């Protein structure tokens, strides 16, 4: 967690969306290998932070990249950013893996995707759609004070009750809750939404 989510704007990176489209359009192995080299180790990191074992984290990272290949055609370059799209794949796989480990579910992978699929009416106004661009979100995140950012980050990766976050950061429980609340409110207002 030491690196936090330092938003490294200067890093020159390939355009991930273009690579995903190349995978989808022509099964481009080189593009896939580039995506793999960047995202697989970060997905593994995400799984480890989420409390998965080394073996499970490795397996889930590989599985997630396989999904990236198989689902590439579903990626809409005009919608979510490539990293957000891959995040949702990793998120859903982790939920599915947890259920299967606990033998909670008779169902198979794919159901988690359905559970996040909301048959929505079109957004009432184009401005709302604009707020979803990654640049805006990155800006909004960059504007959060570091202590709020840290609490948000922990809440993303850990199923930890707030009490454990408080413990890890050595701050009172009430502070965790208020920082998280402040950060989310601020994020919402920075995204230009009215509440």
């Amino acid at each position, binding site marked *: 967690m030491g*690196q*936090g*989510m*330092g938003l*490294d704007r200067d890093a020159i990176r390939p355009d991930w969306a273009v690579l995903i489209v190349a995978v989808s359009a022509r099964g481009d192995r080189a593009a*896939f290998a580039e995506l*793999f*080299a960047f995202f*697989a*180790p*970060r997905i*593994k*990191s*995400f799984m*480890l932070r989420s409390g998965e074992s080394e073996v499970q984290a*490795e397996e889930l*990272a*590989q599985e997630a990249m*396989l999904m990236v290949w*198989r689902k590439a055609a579903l990626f809409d370059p005009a919608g*979510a950013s490539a*990293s*957000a*799209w*891959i995040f*949702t794949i*990793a*998120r859903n796989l982790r939920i599915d893996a947890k*259920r299967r480990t606990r033998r*909670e*579910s*008779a*169902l*198979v992978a*794919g159901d988690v995707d*359905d*559970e996040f*699929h*909301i*048959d929505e009416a*079109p*957004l009432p106004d184009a401005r*709302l759609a604009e707020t*979803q661009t*990654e640049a*805006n*979100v*990155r800006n909004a*995140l960059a504007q959060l004070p570091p202590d709020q950012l840290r609490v948000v980050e922990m*809440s*993303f990766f850990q199923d930890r009750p707030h009490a454990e976050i408080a413990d890890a950061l050595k701050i009172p429980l009430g502070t965790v809750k208020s920082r*998280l*609340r402040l950060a*989310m409110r601020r*994020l*919402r207002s920075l*995204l230009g*939404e*009215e*509440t």
Partner: protein
Amino acid sequence: MSIAHHPSEALLAAYGAGRLDAGEHIAIATHLLACAQCRAFVRAVEQAGGSVLAELTPVPLSADALASVEARLQQAPERFSPAKAPPHQKMAGLPRFVQTYPFDEWRSVAPALQARTIRLPHASLARVFLLKAGPGTRLLEHTHSGVEMTCVLEGGFSHKDGHFGPGDFDFGDSSVDHRPLIDDGVDCVCLVAMRGRLDINGILGRLIQPFVRL
């Protein structure tokens, strides 16, 4: 349709991060179906998740990881895209995946109050049910030992925090003591995800509690 009552940002963030209990996930998804504004916030949370993912310190995979994934690329996907289950229950306002779950029959839980359990395919800390209350009913004064999330599907009710109509989301916990009054004229149907036990305050409540089977 204007929605006045939304889930907290923290709840929406937990939903987007994939950290919610299965039953509570359903309560939030039901609100999202009605609320474009909260859907946009969840997308923003997912974008934030993407940014966070991209900035994580990488942890190397085994040396042959790419090769072993590449070996699987051409295999037929075994578990992907399962046939979609047909809905068991067509009900406006419920997300499609919820409509594929089995629903129990309506049963009476108290005068003018009926409940219908939704059977979840996954273990969940929260029980999920539909609650139908007759017009003009005043529900008992109650608090919760756990957490209760309610999303209105039809009709409406009021309590001290205001009026709740279709799509509105209400959150109750042990700090909330409310006594909803159902709107006149129509039944009110809500989806409820509830953890813990319902506590009914007051002598009358304690007398009547054995009859409220929730």
